[in-house]
């Protein structure tokens, strides 16, 4: 992986701005610590920060075609580059090096922008066609690699992270968008192409955008994740399980290719264990595995992690995360995530990537995406239980079913069946609400948005209407289980899991994550599997468990899913409250940012100090407010562009 950044002059008068590119790429040096490359002409500027995972000698970017009319920078990996290269060589194209990026240039010459459909990979690409005077920005199908852009004073600026764009020009506005803040507090992530910074757009997964003298075009999808759009997969359960295993095995095989050591994350759950087991099958080299354990036993899964690492005979490394660790790294986590978050779960992932880097492992495989595409989430289960009760309200199983939800929680919302019935709104029919599965969660969001200051909210604004506008049309005709999967895959997977918990936390320590479950062939196959084979009754990931039979200890396969979580309020209000927490949550700083109701936050803080029992909502509110205040502190109030006078590691500089 790496970092990309650059600009395109839409109307701006061309001026020599190598300095602007240097500032942008310097902000991405954590993504690409091994060296920088630049391209510049009158119209455009491209900058690349490289993390060497392949072809360390000649793989410097930007790369170009033979007549130097097409230039490319890319973050990520093209896993099928070897096969594509063979085809292109047969068609007469000449290659200068061995990197995967060079394939993109010739593939574009051959097929135009449709070349994206040929790629199997995770990528954010900027391709400049000098002859046609156009810049194309493209992002991988599932949203693994990030890409942001904005228009400012006649220029389009883009970058792997927003901090690169902000570094281009001090006059770029950096204001928090109150409606997007409302969206994040309601449904845990921004919706669509929005970001929390006004005017800054993210390129949607599977989309491409064209920039030219006419301006920045509309984002256009080149691939769409469509659940159940075609005929269901044919075949017996055994045959489907076998096909899933074959696809996953090949997805892993493609992802262990690298010129650097490959490791794996182990959570103790099924998905990461499956990936580690498949790596062991297709490589002969020793495998390093990395895991987070917690001081607090509620969150700790070290026994399960150990069971898998011993079974697979991996070289296992563990980092033990305390409350104080989470509080200590939290501001840095927000600096990298560039968004408010309502859970501290990214913080341990930040520590984990540090552990992988410390042990010389810049590439790790992990199990992200399986819960979304193969039916793993408790939310799906909850929806099934609610749907069952709404159709059979007098069933004797009702109380038992409610108790089976969330068995791992000490503070289970289902301890009280009387409340659970009302909380889960079991009187609503699953077909009467397009967002049936997510509605109880989003309703809770009203509590969180209650903290937003009046100047930040309008009574008319509805985050749910925005979600509706973003994705309702694509969900028509789907059953509630499939609709729930669509929301998870299109909203939370790219906007939270793969970004705040995935790419950003890995890249903070120059560690690239690779996700075999998100190989588009696996995803497309999963999208055609009927829901009843993903979650059979209330057994999650049924087909996956069948598919991996014999690969792992039975206890690992049969174990009930435990969602990955980290302690929230106790991290910040333990024996000592860190000074930065006191500052960010102080009435004085709350009135500086004007984002929240000061008195309400003060009451919440008091409750946190009292160390009484806290509900989910208080935990989410506290983390949401603290992270937003920290974001304001680092990106709005105290933003600094820092860049040395000259970049020592510049490996390539092309000026036309």
């Amino acid at each position, binding site marked *: 992986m790496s970092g990309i950044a650059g600009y395109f002059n839409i109307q701006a008068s061309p001026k020599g701005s190598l300095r602007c590119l240097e500032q942008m790429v310097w902000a991405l040096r954590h993504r690409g610590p091994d060296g920088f490359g630049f391209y510049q002409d009158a119209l455009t500027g491209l900058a690349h920060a490289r993390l060497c995972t392949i072809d360390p000698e000649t793989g410097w970017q930007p790369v170009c075609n033979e007549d130097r009319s097409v230039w490319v920078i890319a973050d990520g990996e093209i896993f099928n580059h070897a096969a594509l290269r063979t085809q292109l060589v047969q068609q007469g194209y000449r290659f200068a090096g061995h990197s995967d990026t060079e394939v993109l240039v010739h593939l574009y010459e051959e097929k135009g922008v449709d070349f994206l459909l040929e790629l199997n990979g995770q990528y954010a690409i900027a391709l400049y066609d000098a002859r046609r005077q156009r810049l194309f920005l493209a992002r991988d199908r599932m949203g693994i690699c990030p890409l942001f852009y904005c228009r400012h004073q006649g220029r389009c600026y883009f970058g792997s992270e927003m901090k690169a764009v902000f570094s281009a020009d001090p006059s770029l506005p950096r204001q928090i968008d109150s409606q997007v803040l409302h969206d994040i507090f309601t449904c845990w992530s921004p919706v669509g192409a929005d970001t929390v910074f006004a005017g800054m757009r993210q390129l949607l997964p599977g989309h491409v955008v064209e920039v030219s003298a006419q301006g920045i075009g509309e984002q256009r999808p080149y691939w769409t994740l469509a659940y159940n759009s075609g005929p269901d997969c044919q075949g017996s359960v055994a045959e489907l399980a076998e096909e899933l295993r074959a696809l996953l095995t090949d997805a892993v095989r493609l992802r262990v290719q690298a010129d650097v050591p490959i490791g794996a994350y182990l959570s103790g759950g099924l998905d990461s264990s499956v990936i580690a087991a498949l790596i062991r099958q297709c490589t002969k080299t020793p495998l390093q595995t990395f895991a987070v354990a917690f001081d607090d036993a509620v969150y700790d899964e070290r026994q399960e992690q150990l069971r898998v690492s011993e079974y697979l005979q991996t070289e296992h490394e563990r980092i033990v995360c305390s409350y104080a660790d989470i509080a200590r790294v939290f501001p840095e986590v927000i600096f990298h995530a560039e968004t408010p978050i309502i859970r501290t779960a990214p913080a341990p992932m930040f520590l984990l990537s540090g552990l992988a880097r410390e042990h010389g492992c810049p590439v790790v495989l992990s199990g992200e995406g399986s819960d979304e595409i193969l039916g793993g989430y408790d939310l799906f289960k909850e929806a099934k239980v609610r749907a069952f009760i709404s159709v059979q309200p007098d069933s004797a199983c009702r109380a038992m079913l409610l108790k089976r939800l969330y068995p791992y929680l000490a503070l289970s919302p289902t301890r*009280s069946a*009387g*409340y659970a019935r*009302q909380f889960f709104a079991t009187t609503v029919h699953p077909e009467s609400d397009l967002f049936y599965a997510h509605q109880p969660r989003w309703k809770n969001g009203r509590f969180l948005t209650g903290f937003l200051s009046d100047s930040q909210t309008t009574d008319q604004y509805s985050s749910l209407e925005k979600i509706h506008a973003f994705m309702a049309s694509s969900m028509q005709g789907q059953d509630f289980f499939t609709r729930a999967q669509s929301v998870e895959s299109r909203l939370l997977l790219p906007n939270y899991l793969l970004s705040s918990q995935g790419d950003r936390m890995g890249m903070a320590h120059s560690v690239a994550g690779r996700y075999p479950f998100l190989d588009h062939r696996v995803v497309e196959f999963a999208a055609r599997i009927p829901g009843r084979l993903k979650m059979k009754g209330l057994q999650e990931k049924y087909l996956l468990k069948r598919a991996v039979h014999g690969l792992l200890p039975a206890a690992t396969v049969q174990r009930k899913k435990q969602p990955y979580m980290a302690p929230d309020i106790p991290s910040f209000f333990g024996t000592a409250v860190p000074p930065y927490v006191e500052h960010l949550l102080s009435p004085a700083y709350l009135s500086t940012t004007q984002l929240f109701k000061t008195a309400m936050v003060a009451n919440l803080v008091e409750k946190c100090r009292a160390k009484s029992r*806290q*509900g*989910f909502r208080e935990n989410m509110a506290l983390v949401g407010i603290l992270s937003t205040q920290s974001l304001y502190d680092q990106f709005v109030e105290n933003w600094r562009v820092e860049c040395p006078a000259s970049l020592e590691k510049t490996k390539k500089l092309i000026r036309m």
Partner: protein
Amino acid sequence: MQENIDTIRAFIVSNFLFDTTETPLENDTSFLEQGIIDSTGVLELVEWLEETFSIKVADEELIPENLDSVHLLAQFVGRKTS
């Protein structure tokens, strides 16, 4: 009774509403309908009831009919302590 109502109101306002100025809390306001307490909040409420009024709340008593407004709570506490 009135004393209990005041104690309960104060607890609900400071622990679940946080906002003492804007949200009106009538003694008959439904906690669930108004989103004042969610299902994990109920457990927090029960802990506080048990501690404050020296009572024991059984699982089967965890129903909205006992706990869903200031009035209902006061009546419930009244029954438990009489």
